[in-house]
């Protein structure tokens, strides 16, 4: 494999505490190294910004609901499809890009690792087929557990060991990465057209509450010592007043401690926090709860969050929160897709237009800005758009522009039709903070990598780590003349390296890389009861056989990378 030396760039690496110093980054055999030989290819990064490859902690980029979005939104691709070009296959899609386009767009923006945030276990084989066809970036997928019948039945009796054994089995057969929870209990209730809007609403038939599910899954997660913490989309998403449900959910982590060998210090990841930080009682008095949420997270160090920034685009919402999507289609009357998955979960899809002329959308935008700017520890708050829910991931450069420039934010605020309402219902107008490049590297690299349990592998530029490197045409020594220059710089990398391979040069794909599927292989003690339960459920209630359930073999996971966890000692 080639050797490279990236010379004279301004390096931002929170892992090593490097804050823009001019430093050379050496690459050999796919890793960052101290030194390379004189034959190494020299990349001139003078006047440029150098960071580790960015890490996406939460996006919907592969699998059945994503593809349902593609299938049912031809208009999302109208006049936007792109031709075959050099290494690149054809692409298309604004809010739900094709798999090829997804891989290219991430790489071009300097992202090298991404997590598919909600994998319905029964559809894991589909998720993996799409991951396989998403070039360059390493990907993992989070199976959903929060409405799974096994979990509901075990946790009703607080059977942590059985829950853990079941999780281990599920991660293995689905080649999954982490424990994802979406609207705990509420999605099972949705199978009867109902919902759980608070952490104490009982789940129909199963006689358990969301609170019990969440606590039990954190315990099981730490019992196993998984790389990532339990990753949650709480109950009551998107409703005025939902911040209280969010605080109730966060409180469930109280006193819980991380237990793992991956350097992760937290036990709960609250995703797309913007959607969970709403005060008010209706859409008329709707206001920001960002302060309440960030105050709590700032004080409680065992929690991490991501933002879920609204980008003010026409996009497509999709979530395993089935009842929410049904609620949403009632609000905007746009086409509604839903799929309930036996014994496991559900999903819904609805197009949505975040119009700058609608006050609610503008306030949502402002809350998404407030959260990262109010968080005191950038290592515990990560930038996402909950792609494609709050906007497509391809808008990250614009979100970065807004976060790095008050001027850019003010320009946007002034462009809102209901500017006064935005200023009265949020505190965005009084926030002067501008994100530094170092904080950006924390929020998009080192932070998410640590929370995912990948701190030794990616998110930094320390020798020994994977050589995932992004070089941006952005000179931190020069004042920013126009905030749009920030957006331009972060849209297309001068260079992206993935595992030591130069994949992007001058914003163009030059190599399709060696994409890996990340999954977590947990060894647990034999648990005959759980195995018997699984067997019985397949015979009686699943519509397919157990022997056909596993995602197995080269077709689904051609290049696996397993993080090994040994939980047999407990």
């Amino acid at each position, binding site marked *: 494999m080639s050797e490279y030396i990236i010379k004279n760039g301004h390096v931002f690496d929170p892992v090593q505490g490097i804050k823009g110093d001019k430093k050379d980054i050496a690459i050999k055999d796919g890793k960052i190294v101290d030194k390379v030989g004189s034959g190494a290819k020299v990349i001139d990064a003078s006047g440029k910004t150098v960071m580790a490859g960015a890490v996406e902690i939460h996006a919907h980029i*592969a699998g*059945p609901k994503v*593809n*349902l979005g*593609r*299938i*049912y*939104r*031809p*208009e*999302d*691709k109208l006049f936007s*499809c*792109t*031709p*075959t070009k*050099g*290494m690149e*296959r*054809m692409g*298309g*899609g604004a809010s739900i890009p*094709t*798999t*090829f386009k997804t891989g290219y767009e991430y790489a071009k923006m300097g992202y090298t690792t991404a997590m598919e945030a909600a994998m319905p276990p*029964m*559809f894991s*084989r*589909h998720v993996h*087929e*799409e991951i396989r*066809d998403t070039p360059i970036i390493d990907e993992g997928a989070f199976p959903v557990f929060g409405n799974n019948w096994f979990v509901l039945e075990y946790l009703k009796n607080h059977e942590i060991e059985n829950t853990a054994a079941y999780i281990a089995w599920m991660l293995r057969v689905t080649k999954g990465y982490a424990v994802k929870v979406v609207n705990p209990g509420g999605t099972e209730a*949705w*199978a*009867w*057209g109902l919902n759980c809007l608070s952490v104490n609403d009982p789940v129909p*038939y199963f006689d358990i509450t969301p609170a019990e599910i969440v606590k039990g899954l954190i315990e099981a997660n730490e019992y196993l010592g998984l790389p990532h913490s339990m990753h949650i989309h709480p109950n009551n998403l998107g409703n005025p007043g939902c911040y209280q449900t969010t605080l109730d959910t966060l409180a469930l982590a109280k006193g819980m401690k991380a237990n793992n060998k991956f350097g992760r210090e937290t036990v709960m990841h609250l995703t797309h926090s913007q959607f969970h930080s709403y005060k008010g009682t209706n859409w008329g008095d709707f206001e920001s709860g960002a302060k309440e949420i960030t105050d709590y997270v700032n004080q409680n160090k065992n929690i991490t969050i991501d933002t879920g920034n609204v980008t003010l685009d026409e996009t497509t919402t999709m979530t395993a929160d089935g009842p929410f999507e*049904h609620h949403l*289609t009632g609000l905007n009357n746009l*086409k*509604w*897709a*839903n*799929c*309930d*998955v*036996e*014994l496991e979960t*559900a999903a819904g*899809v*609805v197009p949505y237009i975040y119009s700058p002329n609608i006050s609610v959308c503008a306030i949502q935008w402002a809350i998404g800005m407030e959260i990262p700017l109010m968080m005191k520890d950038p290592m515990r708050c990560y930038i996402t758009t909950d792609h494609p829910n709050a906007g497509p991931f391809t808008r990250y450069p614009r979100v970065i522009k807004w976060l790095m420039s008050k001027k850019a934010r003010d320009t946007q605020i002034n462009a809102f039709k209901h500017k006064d309402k935005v200023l009265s219902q949020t505190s965005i107008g009084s926030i002067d903070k501008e994100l530094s490049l170092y904080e950006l590297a924390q929020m998009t690299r080192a932070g998410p990598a640590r929370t995912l349990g990948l701190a030794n592998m990616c998110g930094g530029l320390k020798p020994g780590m994977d050589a995932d490197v992004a070089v941006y045409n952005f000179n931190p020594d020069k004042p920013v003349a126009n905030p749009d220059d920030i957006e331009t710089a972060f849209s297309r990398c001068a260079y992206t390296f993935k595992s030591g391979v130069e994949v992007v040069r001058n914003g163009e794909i030059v190599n399709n890389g060696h994409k890996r599927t990340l999954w977590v292989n947990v060894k647990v003690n034999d648990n005959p009861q759980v195995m018997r339960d699984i067997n019985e459920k397949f015979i009686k*209630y699943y*519509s*397919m*056989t157990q*022997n*056909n359930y596993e995602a197995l*073999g080269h*077709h*689904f996971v051609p290049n696996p990378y397993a993080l090994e966890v040994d939980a047999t000692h407990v």
Partner: protein
Amino acid sequence: MTKTVTDVICPFCGTLCDDLEVVVSDDGKQLLEVYNACVIGTEKFLHSQAKDRVTRPRLRQADGTWKEISYDEAADYTAQMLAKAKKPLMYGWSSTNCEAQSVGNEIAEISRACCDNTAAVCHGTTLIAVQDIGLPTCTLGEVKNRADRVIFWGCNPAHAHPRHMSRYSIFPRGFFTGKGQMSRKLIVIDPRVTDTAKMADVHLQIEQGKDYELLNALRVALKGEWLPDVVAGIPKEKIREAADMMKSGRFGIIFFGMGVTQSIGKNHNIDEAIAVTKDLNEYTKFSIMPMRGHYNVTGSGEVFAWQFGFPYSVDLTRGFARYNPGDTSSIDLLNRGEVDAMFTIGSDPGAHFPISAVKHIANVPSVCIDPHLTPTSGVSKLHVPVAFNGVETGGNCYRMDNVPIDCRKVVEPPAGMLTDEQFLVMVRDRLKKLKGAA
């Protein structure tokens, strides 16, 4: 000695049963018995053993006779045909696996072809309707475990999806449906007294071609509004009765088939049926599901969608993907004389397209990849027989509810025969050379 392969997937219809048991000879070369399959599935497995099978490619000669050629020659011919054509149509894909579909898409991309699957003549109009209004649906296990209202609209599973009723929809005892058939009310809407209709609690013998009106009347009845006395041949009292029966369930499902997708109204029939489903979710829980025909037509749509963005009728001729049934759909392309080469795989347009479209296939350079002799192979210039997917080779497929299931290979193909995927790889590699692609 024999051995039994379990958990075998049936490569016939969209029900994609995965509980078959197949007995094969010890050397894995002969398939002896098939258990658990329906009569059609059994025939599919057994027919692979036919002694008179064509096992080598054949090229039609000027005098109308076939000449046997090698797979290499067949791949050369196919690649050259695709390279020369200005607007080739690559049609079928529904009776092969996702691996082959994926290679096929690369070929289509390099040759800048139109590509389409059998949804074109099956549930294509369903896809248009889903694009217009969405689709509240579920997996088949949800139906088994929860459904107490089951509606079959313009479909006849007793004939087209023989095990559907016993595995998922009418008879099974699920988690919340412990009494099986007794737990469910069955409504059938069909202009004929089909064998499915004979089992129904309520059969609405609709006037053919009036599905859109009857579905509209159901929506009106759900809202309790004024109705004409008779709609689509059904008195309004019966319509209100059916609407009340649907509303009063705890979990309902509408299955629909070609009775609505192919009758006048087409996509709008489904659009309105989905609207009925959506409306019912104001009162209870309801889902709707197309009864997909070919065992992997759904998979073809999935692969097209994640690679090109559209589920069928994709036009790549301009170098990027476009989609608009009516313009880019196979029947229209053929009837309008828009294409100058025809590539068929995993389907039989010769038997299942209107004859006017088939005549155009016969008039242009054509290749048919199919294990069987078919009307399509009968009008094509080149016939390439291949191994039976799901019998002689495995590969991923998608059930009618989009659940992916990896098919199993149970027996060896006749010596020297290639699979779809193997042959397509040969074509792709040749085409890349011809087109100088990367």
